């Protein structure tokens, strides 16, 4: 996939001032299945800078969780990662498992969806902190370990009196705070939070979002927040990347993307979200494609209300718009660079003859 930077000179690269902590280029994650390889993440590129939060959104099965885990080298056996995942210049894809393990914790953190089962039930909270600190910072005294752990816990609102308790003595919200403290006690520069609030109640969810929002300010942590909840992205993320069928179809400043969504998928996704301002129900017909056998051309074209004939044949390039937003759609590509229209062929810009009837049969 090529990026046509047609409008780039017009846009001052204000947010590019700081070097990215994490720079992902053309990353792919493949799974071997009985039906052949599945490209769960298929050529994804993005940057995350210190103190910045990038929201990663999309329907389930679009590859967002796989992407998050792929960065940390935690994809399941039978999968392969290629491309570049540059953490401050080091390509993580080329590291040995052992080298990667040493970086997980002090440089790369991961926060999970369901906090109830993420702590070892047989170990006290204190033991899980001691294990983590001992592994990565050898030579810390017992007293130092205790102080560091208590400090991290207090930052998350867990009183020191609970340090010697077992996981089952905490509520779901508290366990998620403990998980976050456990990730932050090593002060990683980059953290992936995979649906960190999905299993939690509304008020606790809001508390956790607040904690994550404070994180980037207080620690300068670069955060990738994976969620299906667009509301969370709008409230907690600086930038957003919208994923569809293994691709990032649109990424940019989250205010800009939510205010002026460009890619048809982003528009449809926003319209179909039920929020407090919903007055009528809208939904995207059909379901995301089978990643073992994705459609030709643009992967969204079978469900796209504005698909053109060429969309079903030629894959669209990623273009950078005047707003700084990057979109991977022929409509924006032609807008930015009209000469690209030639690639679509002679009647490539005709509307795709009646997007074929999509019934419930194809529903997700």
């Amino acid at each position, binding site marked *: 996939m090529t990026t046509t930077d047609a409008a780039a000179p017009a846009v001052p690269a204000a947010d590019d001032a700081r070097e990215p902590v994490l720079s992902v280029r053309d990353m792919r994650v493949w799974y071997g299945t009985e039906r052949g390889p599945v490209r769960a993440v298929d050529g994804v590129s993005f940057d995350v800078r210190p103190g910045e939060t990038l929201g990663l959104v999309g329907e389930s099965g679009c590859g967002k969780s796989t992407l998050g885990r792929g960065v*940390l080298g*935690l994809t399941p056996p039978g999968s392969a990662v290629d491309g570049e995942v540059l953490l401050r210049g080091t390509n993580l894809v080329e590291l040995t*498992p052992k080298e990667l*393990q*040493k*970086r*997980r*914790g*002090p440089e*790369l*953190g*991961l926060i*999970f969806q*369901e906090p109830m*089962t*993420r*702590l*070892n*039930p*047989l170990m006290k909270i204190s033991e899980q902190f001691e*294990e*983590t600190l001992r*592994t*990565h910072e050898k030579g810390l005294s017992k007293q130092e370990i205790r102080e560091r752990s208590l400090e991290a816990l207090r930052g998350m609102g867990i009183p020191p009196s609970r340090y*010697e308790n*077992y996981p*089952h003595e905490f509520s779901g919200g508290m366990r998620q705070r403990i*998980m976050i403290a*456990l*990730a932050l006690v*090593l002060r990683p520069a980059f953290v992936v939070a995979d649906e960190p609030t999905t299993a939690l109640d509304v008020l606790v969810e809001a508390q956790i979002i607040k904690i994550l929002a404070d994180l980037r300010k207080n620690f300068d942590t670069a955060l990738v927040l994976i969620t299906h909840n667009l509301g969370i992205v709008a409230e907690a993320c600086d930038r957003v990347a919208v994923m569809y069928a293994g691709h990032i179809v649109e990424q940019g400043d989250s205010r800009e993307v939510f205010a002026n969504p460009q890619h048809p998928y982003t528009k449809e996704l926003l319209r179909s979200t039920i929020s407090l301002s919903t007055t009528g129900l809208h939904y995207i017909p059909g379901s995301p494609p089978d990643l073992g056998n994705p459609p030709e051309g643009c992967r969204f074209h079978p469900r796209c209300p504005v698909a053109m004939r060429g969309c079903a044949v030629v894959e669209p390039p990623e273009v950078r718009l005047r707003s700084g937003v990057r979109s991977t759609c022929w409509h924006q590509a032609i807008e930015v660079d009209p000469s690209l229209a030639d690639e679509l062929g002679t009647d490539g810009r005709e509307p795709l003859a009646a997007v074929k009837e999509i019934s419930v049969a194809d529903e997700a």
Partner: protein
Amino acid sequence: MSKQSGSLRRYILTRIALAVPMVFILLVLVFVMMRVAPGDPIAASQGGKLSAVELAARRHAAGFDRPLYVQFWEYLKSVGTLNFGTTFSDNLSVRDVIIQRGGATLSLSLGALLVAIVIGVPVGLLAGRFRDRGIDVTGRLFAIVTYAAPAFVLGLLAQLAFGANGLGLLPTSGQSSLLVGLNVPTTTHILILDAAIAGDWSAVGDIAQHLVLPSVTLGLIIVGVFIRMIRVNVIQTLQGDYVEAARARGIKETAVVTRHAFRNALVPVVTVLGLQVAMLLGGSVLTEKTFNWPGIGQALITYINARDYAAVQGIVTVFALVVVVISMLIDFVNALIDPRVRY
């Protein structure tokens, strides 16, 4: 800290308190069971040998002509003092029979358990860790074969292979060589311990040799369950959420596997282990028979055939008590290693 240990102590105390009604119910069951059999025990064991008058006298002496509640009270007293009277068939003290034979069974059971743990735990852990690889396939096959093979077949095979007619390496009958057994002074009734206490190391060696084949045979029979159960637990915990979380914190793979996966996988095994011990104590009759082991299982069968009521009642009562004690111990161990149990 104090809160936790306090609750553990409270757990143990309540657990002991709860064992009391359980023991009572078991004793009632044993008492009733012994009495629903047709005829009375004296007539059953001595009928035809004694005259009617003598039978009645014996019955009176044994107390069988008294009301049931009086008999039950006597029974409870006998349990309280652990004095179960004398056997009808060979006039031995029931308590002595239980202690002597029980000692033999206990050493066989513990030996078998040791074999099962030493083989089962590592094979199970490795099979689960290296799923579908050589060790796993072999381990599973081994587990199925040993699990399916009847005790006497395994025992006979072992005797043929290692006994006098085969390699001639190991003794195949009894607890010890004849003279050795007689010369060891009795203290614990577990022969090998007694020999060790007496400092007679050649006797210890002899007894240990005698112990090998029966223990391995019995151990192999139960090891299949261990292997399969531990394997499944390891596979499950390795896919567990907290294992992935530990990896995500960069915990070393060896620590992830041992501290998080193996340890947690072994928790449910404690329960099975305890149940197996309880089963071994009563259920090793076939192995005892095969190796001519003077255990309590063999004794029980003999006494049942002889309709020796006093002996059977005594032995069954002790079995019941042992099962209660073991299940209590299982609960303690579980509470000790798994904090969630204490609540």
